[in-house]
């Protein structure tokens, strides 16, 4: 697994090196790296695994070909095994949602998944998915890891509003909630709760504490991260769909740390002492939200064990038993 921190890189030179390597490579360029329980925004991290992965690059240009490419990947998945499907995807690829759906349709609910969204915090799309094909844009990589991986997922955000129906959405642009301009609805809730005004600060400075939560049947929430507005609609990191219900969520340092500890604990319980190393996929926006105190989140996850990982733009996980989701502002802890 190869992870490079986002920065001004001569992409061509890295591309050639990856394409020439005899290793089977999977990875991406991410806003941050985690190494021995610390976060970095520079450098690279390479993790060699005991097994050789069969890695496939999936172009995400159009929906029918995504399904076809996933079928052609020919991953030999062992149902009900302790292994996991590892995936990294261009976070800004239009076909990302279709990719998750196609992967779920192909491989189903009984296996474990872990992965994350690659790319730059600038939200400018760029080549960011690493494989033996080099560095690719608008793509995803998938591989089946046979050896056991235990996964925990949690976030720590809590609802502070009633549910609003998504009445108009265009891809990741949330147009209306309850038939009203989305920003108007969002602004009312957030400004009343925070006692602060969007007029007095950049949108993300306040919005980073108030993501949306998509309500699931089992009472849990999948977080959607708002990152920009045109004063009418709101741009989200990942898609929502018309007819879904969104709550405005809020978190504080304590609740996020509780979420981080919960993810770590879930992975530990599933692992039953098998592994002592942690691979963590933590959302970059949690580190932006917590700032200097992000180190406390890393401590809460690692709990004095060795931890490596990435700071991602969206997280992908399923512990084997529910619909595969793309998360935002969430922690995925894997023990492997």
């Amino acid at each position, binding site marked *: 697994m190869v992870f490079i921190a986002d920065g001004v890189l001569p992409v061509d030179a890295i591309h050639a090196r990856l394409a020439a*390597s005899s290793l089977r490579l999977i990875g991406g360029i991410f806003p941050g790296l985690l190494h021995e329980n610390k976060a970095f925004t520079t450098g690279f991290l390479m993790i060699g695994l*005991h097994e050789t992965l069969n890695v496939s690059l999936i172009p995400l240009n159009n929906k029918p070909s995504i399904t076809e490419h996933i079928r052609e990947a020919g991953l030999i998945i062992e149902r009900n095994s302790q292994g996991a499907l590892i995936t990294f995807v261009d976070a800004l690829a239009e076909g990302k949602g279709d990719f998750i759906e196609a992967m779920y349709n192909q491989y189903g609910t009984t296996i474990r998944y872990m992965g994350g969204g690659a790319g730059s915090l600038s939200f400018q799309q760029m080549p960011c998915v690493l494989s033996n094909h080099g560095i690719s844009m608008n793509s995803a990589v998938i591989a089946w890891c046979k050896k056991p991986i235990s996964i925990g997922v949690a976030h720590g955000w809590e609802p502070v509003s009633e549910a609003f129906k998504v009445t108009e959405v265009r891809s990741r642009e949330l147009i209306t909630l309850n038939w009203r301009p989305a920003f108007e609805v969002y602004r009312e809730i957030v400004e009343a709760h925070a006692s602060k005004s969007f007029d007095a600060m950049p949108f993300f400075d306040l919005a980073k504490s108030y993501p949306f939560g998509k309500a699931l049947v089992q009472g849990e929430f999948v977080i959607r991260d708002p990152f920009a507005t045109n004063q009418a609609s709101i741009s989200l990191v990942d898609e929502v769909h018309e007819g879904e219900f969104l709550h405005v969520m809020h978190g504080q340092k304590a609740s996020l740390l509780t979420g981080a500890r919960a993810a770590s604990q879930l992975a530990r319980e599933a692992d039953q002492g098998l592994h002592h*190393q942690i691979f963590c996929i933590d959302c970059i926006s949690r580190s932006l939200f917590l700032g200097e105190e992000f180190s406390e989140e890393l401590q809460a996850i690692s709990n004095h064990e060795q931890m490596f990982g990435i700071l991602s733009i969206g997280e992908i996980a399923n512990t084997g038993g529910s619909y595969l989701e793309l998360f935002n502002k969430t922690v995925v802890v894997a023990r492997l």
Partner: protein
Amino acid sequence: MSVLIDVFTRMKSLDRKSTNMERVLFTEDFTFEAFDAALSELELKSSA
């Protein structure tokens, strides 16, 4: 050349046995020398 940290060499033998990770290589300063060295290290281990 930037310093390439090889975590594996510092792992206790018990930890080495209890992980799917065979090698963990990291540097905070990206250089192509370090990148090539890390790839070579993993290739060497892989072919051993």
